[in-house]
């Protein structure tokens, strides 16, 4: 399959990482608020370097099971977040995705704009049947993004993730290809 990125939206560019993104990536990856509901973070500068180096190495391979993309805000030419999509069940044409955004750029629709483009690729370019994502039940901003995308809350998992020292509950959201079609109409 051809590479289906970079993707351009009205305000954003979803593209592969560059070594020069390190400063921007560390700005959000080191923020404890940004990763408070995630397994990772907050990153030390070393951890950010290491993660970025891994992205750069993985970008040399194609095809691959997981694609991580930096989200660049076109007007500032700045990396304000990242998205990730992976084939979680090839036989059932199912993919999972995730996203992280710099706190300073929250509440402006950037996550929705970026992930909408990502879902579009999932269904149109690689013809997925089902796409899912999950987040901590307390991460209201995150699950609101999924609801804006038209995803359905399929369930709540009780204390399924041990993060930052405690067992946490999470929501699973998903959307099927035909639901995406009608949501886009």
């Amino acid at each position, binding site marked *: 399959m051809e590479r289906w990125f970079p993707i351009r939206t009205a305000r954003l560019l979803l593209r592969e990482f560059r070594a020069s993104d390190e*400063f921007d990536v*560390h*700005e959000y990856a*080191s923020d*404890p*608020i940004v990763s*408070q509901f995630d397994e990772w973070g907050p990153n030390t*500068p070393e951890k950010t370097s290491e993660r970025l180096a891994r992205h750069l190495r993985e970008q040399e391979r194609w095809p691959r099971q997981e694609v991580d993309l930096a989200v660049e805000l076109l007007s500032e030419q700045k990396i304000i977040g990242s998205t990730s999509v992976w084939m979680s069940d090839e036989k059932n044409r199912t993919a999972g995705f995730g996203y992280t955004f710099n*706190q300073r750029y*929250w*509440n402006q629709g950037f996550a929705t704009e970026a992930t909408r483009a990502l879902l579009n690729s999932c269904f149109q370019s690689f013809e997925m049947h089902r796409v899912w994502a999950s987040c901590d039940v*307390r991460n*209201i*901003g995150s699950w609101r993004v999924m609801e804006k995308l038209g995803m359905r809350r399929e369930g709540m998992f009780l204390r399924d993730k041990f993060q*930052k*020292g*405690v*067992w*946490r*509950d999470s929501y699973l959201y998903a959307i099927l290809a035909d639901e995406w079609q009608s949501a886009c109409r």
Partner: protein
Amino acid sequence: MAICVPIIETPRLILRGWRDEDIEPWVAMNSDPRVMEFLGISYSRAEAEAKISEMRAAFARDEDGWWAVEIKEGGRFAGRVALHAVPFKAHFTPATELGWRFVFEEWGKGYATEAAAAVINFAFKVRNYDEVVAITSVLNLRSQRVMQRLGMTCNPADDFDAPNFEEGHRLRPRVLYRLRRPAPEVDSLGKNRA
């Protein structure tokens, strides 16, 4: 009695002491079921009026207390914000609590976030507190969203049961959000987090 209420101005709001003309909108707000949904209390007119006298006295006595929030444009009463000691014993007390309650018609405009952010600034810069907390029902997602916007964090390990609701009451489970005073220094990458 001289009551010194620190007046705080934000781009769109004025946080100030209570005036007699606040009584009517305050009584109306406290009898609005949409505003009171997660508070589990309701005030009669007499109680609401008594509460105003109590709030008026608080700043003089405790240093902290309850501000009336006025919208600069048009001078409407929008609600109240508070900074006070948590009035019960729990695993995280003593602690200073931040709170807000706004007229339903003014929701969705960012006023709670704007007013609370100004109170946080007051708590850290004027009062020199090391930490403020905010408490709400587990069910009150709108309020938790404001807390998250303010940069507050929660940890399920801090969850607790409100002592003023009986076992099994839907409003008994509470979440605690915390915010530490930001360190004034700039970090290694030059990002000023203050």
